[in-house]
């Protein structure tokens, strides 16, 4: 039993539960933003399960692919794949099984929804991780596009089509992701250098990276507010979204003109809180 529990812990950690949970939250928020009958428990559970399995599957596959560079980085060398705590072929099989079940379930629910979930997985594993991550700092754009797929998929499932609001919500996530990942790549610049993974800070320098963070934060905030307006958020909720967006922008401006490790860290953390809060607002608006 303890062996099984230990193995489960290892695999659970490989799914990056916090990150997968946040992406799942965006998917649920996207679905609810369509103002379809959101209290259909069967659909909600199927959406949650299929999306979580697909996200977890792609994350496990990324871990499997990146196990060599993860082992070179202080931040990731304790991962189960880097430390050899799990068999690498078994990890590959687990990632594939989770992905196939997740995408298959999604396709069975709705073809368009399934296609978008598959696109997210395809962009994340094949384009971002396998093809571009070790070649160019611009790989994060594709990582961002894959991260934007759950919210688009959720809304497409609720609506039965892709509309401008879904695209704007996806853009909000797409522009938010650099705020998150670029602050991360600045904080762990040495790790990425040790693993020979090109990042914005190592390729274009800190000034350009900080300016990119500021611009992407501005675009993310604008996209979320526009999407909120499109969804039909009340003025009160839009005000609150505006306040939270202002906080994000202020930190982004601060990191550009008065950079420090502390501001960098606070922007990284605040960006997560911002996105979670934005998703909660979308859900509360409908509920």
């Amino acid at each position, binding site marked *: 039993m303890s062996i099984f529990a230990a193995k489960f812990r290892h695999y659970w950690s490989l799914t990056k539960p916090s990150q997968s949970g946040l992406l799942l939250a965006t998917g649920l928020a996207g679905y609810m933003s369509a103002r379809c009958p959101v209290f259909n428990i069967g659909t909600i559970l199927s959406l949650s399960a299929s999306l979580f399995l697909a996200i977890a599957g792609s994350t496990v596959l990324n871990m499997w692919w990146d196990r060599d560079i993860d082992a070179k980085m202080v931040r990731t060398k304790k991962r189960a794949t880097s430390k050899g705590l799990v068999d690498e072929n078994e990890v590959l099989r687990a990632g594939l099984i989770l992905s196939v079940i997740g995408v298959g379930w999604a396709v069975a629910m709705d073809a368009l929804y399934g296609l978008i979930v598959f696109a997210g997985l395809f962009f994340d594993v094949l384009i971002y991780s396998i093809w571009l991550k070790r070649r160019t700092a611009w790989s994060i754009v594709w990582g961002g596009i894959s991260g934007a797929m759950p919210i688009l998929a959720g809304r497409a499932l609720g609506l039965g089509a892709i509309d401008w609001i879904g695209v704007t919500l996806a853009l909000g996530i797409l522009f938010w992701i650099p705020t998150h990942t670029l602050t991360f790549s600045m904080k762990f610049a040495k790790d990425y250098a040790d693993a020979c993974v090109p990042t914005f800070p190592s390729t274009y320098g800190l000034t350009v990276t900080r300016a990119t963070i500021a611009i992407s934060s501005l675009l993310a905030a604008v996209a979320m507010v526009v999407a909120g307006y499109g969804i039909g958020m009340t003025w*009160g909720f839009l005000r*609150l979204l505006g*306040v*939270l967006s202002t906080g994000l922008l202020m930190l982004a401006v601060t990191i550009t003109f008065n950079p420090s490790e502390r501001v960098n860290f*606070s922007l990284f953390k605040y960006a997560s809180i911002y996105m979670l*809060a934005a998703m909660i607002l979308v859900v509360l608006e409908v509920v």
Partner: protein
Amino acid sequence: MKLTSSDRVLLLFTALLASYQVAVGMDGFSALPIIAYTIGFGVLLIAALLIFILGFDVLDSPVVVIVSTVIPLALSLGLVWQHLASYRTSYLLFTIIGFLAVAWTRSIQMQNKLPVIILAITHGIAGMTIFLLPIILSIQGGMKPLFSLVGVGGALIGIGGLLLSFLKTGKPILSRGTIMRLFPILLLVTTALFVAGFQYG
């Protein structure tokens, strides 16, 4: 000094209460009070989140003095605009000039006591407005009795501001540790009083 778990819980509730006030606590108000209260509670919300993320060290930033001026100025402007119609324009001017003066005197090096005087006048007038106006309105029957809670909240945030200001000037009334232990409670109680006062007053 590190944040404890209870500090984090208190700050989270502060952020939630401030969020509530921004989102649904000002329905029916006119445009300027909505803007003013949104700025005031918005700063409270962002401040609570930043302390939650970065810990008490964030209070050592020189920007804190400028940002913390926004809260009493914005809240008092909203109150004056709603309840003292004849003072609207003059108080709006005071708010703008007061904020710019604090920002200016805190942004450049000054050897004289002008920054302290400006800060004391601005905080003093705004603080007394938040403290006295709701209480007077409640006593006179212009508002419901519970509106006076806004005044109590104003007094508490004034105490918090004083404790921090004296700490920053190197002449603390209480030790830094005590102030930091009290700060999350003070922030939550203040925000709760403001929200309750506006809701039930």
